[in-house]
């Protein structure tokens, strides 16, 4: 895949845009089973990325991804800051400037593993991993952008009946059941936005 400046900029813009238009929904989800700061944290982080978007888009893909990861880590705080930061930094480390589909899949798998290592967590514990893992599997299975977006969306929905074992919601025990995980939702939003740009690009 050719990552030109323009595409990169549009991908960043799309990710930031979806966070900006959904941050209050994320706040509400985190108020229900966490501490209500996930929306503000995501907005703070992605707004910081947007502030640098021009410069970021100029750079080769790995540098861009690493810089995005660093910006998220240094601005978000909380649990999701290190996790999203780790995801993008690891992706930056794993990809080269023009990754093919196989390289992309492998990079995503490595980034997913880095998040799990950072969070000492695994899929099935009602976290963002419950979106990232099925998305990784769909990528490996050769799914197109539209399919990946749908997988991400459905995976976030599927966290509703789960019992939280990691993240602040885990303190709630049984009372965490019946609510969507905020980090799963934010992951599905970003993946959805990125996929939409890629779909349009390939169309």
């Amino acid at each position, binding site marked *: 895949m050719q990552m030109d400046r323009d595409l990169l900029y549009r991908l960043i813009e799309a990710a930031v845009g979806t966070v900006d238009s959904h941050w209050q929904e994320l706040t509400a989800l985190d108020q229900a089973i966490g501490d209500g*700061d996930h929306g503000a944290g995501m907005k703070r982080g992605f707004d910081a990325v947007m502030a640098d978007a021009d410069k970021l888009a100029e750079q080769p893909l790995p540098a861009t991804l690493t810089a995005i990861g660093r910006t998220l880590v240094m601005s978000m705080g909380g649990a999701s800051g290190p996790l999203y930061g780790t995801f993008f930094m690891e992706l930056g480390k794993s990809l080269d400037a023009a990754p093919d589909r196989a390289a992309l899949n492998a990079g995503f798998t490595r980034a997913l593993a880095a998040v799990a290592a950072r969070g000492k967590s695994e899929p099935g514990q009602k976290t963002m991993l419950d979106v990232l893992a099925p998305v990784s599997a769909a990528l490996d299975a050769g799914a197109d952008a539209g399919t990946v977006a749908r997988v991400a969306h459905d995976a976030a929905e599927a966290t509703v009946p789960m019992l939280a074992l990691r993240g602040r919601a885990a303190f709630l025990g049984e009372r965490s059941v019946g609510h969507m995980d905020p980090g799963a939702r934010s992951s599905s939003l970003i993946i959805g936005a990125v996929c939409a740009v890629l779909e349009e690009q390939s169309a």
Partner: protein
Amino acid sequence: MKKLINDIANVLDESLDGFAAAHADLVAMDPGRRFVQRRTPAQAKVALVSGGGSGHEPLHAGFVGRGMLDAAVPGAIFTSPTPDRILAAIEAADTGAGVVLIVKNYEGDVMNFEMAAEMAEGEVARVLVDDDVAVDNSSYTIGRRGVAGTLVVEKILGAAAEKGMALPDLVALGARVNAATRSMGVALSSCTVPAAGIPTFQLGEDEIEVGVGIHGEPGRRRAPMVSADAIVAELLKAILDDLKPKAGSKCLLFVNGFGGTPSSELYLVFNAARKRLEVEGLSVARSLVGSYVTSLEMAGCSLTVTVLDDELTALWDEPVSTPALRW
């Protein structure tokens, strides 16, 4: 939401500026407001750095000073600070003898402090605090929350570090203090995060939240309001069932207000708790009563019990000179 604030976006900065100005004799704020450190940094000792989400004042910045912390890193309200701020504090505090991070057991804090430690050049170790018995501690979950017992760990490690204890010994001592410490709290009202604008939870006129966390997290149960004696009995039972102190043990009893409860009520609770502990065969050798680990303006309090031995008692008694704790 009725609070003494100006712009919601600046609450934390304005409060920190006021804190630093009011205590300029003891502490100094990093120009970028990334951390608070001692006015006169210590020389040639292991540095102690703590921090976490804001809203628990005076924890942690109020405990920076001789005999306690070397630096504290405040995050946004109820949000763990970012690794760059923690790293800046580590670098400012490290005199070459290494740094011990005192971290409350929340995944956000754990991960951000961990990333900072990975980035640091010098030797950095960590002491984890998880004293809240309200929350289940089964091995497949993330374990217990760190609450008011953090003060006890910071005070005792602070004294030991001041006396020249080496880094590995401090880490072992920290684990020992944490293992000897248990807490549990009760809320009579909710707190309101300024950015949220509405109370974190809703309590009826005659309801309390037993086992509440210091971010207003739900605890063990919503219960009808009862007497101070009955509340104390429930909190201490949970603490002692878990702590299982030897009969006749000496202990520290710490009654901590959550921000909206006056000291007269805290002293009444202390009185009830000390009597109950004596009935349980423990002796209250040291005490602390006050609003030290708060949840914004939440009404309520927590009880903390630390089983003391001679070493811990002596370290607790060592002089301390910080904005919020001095003797």
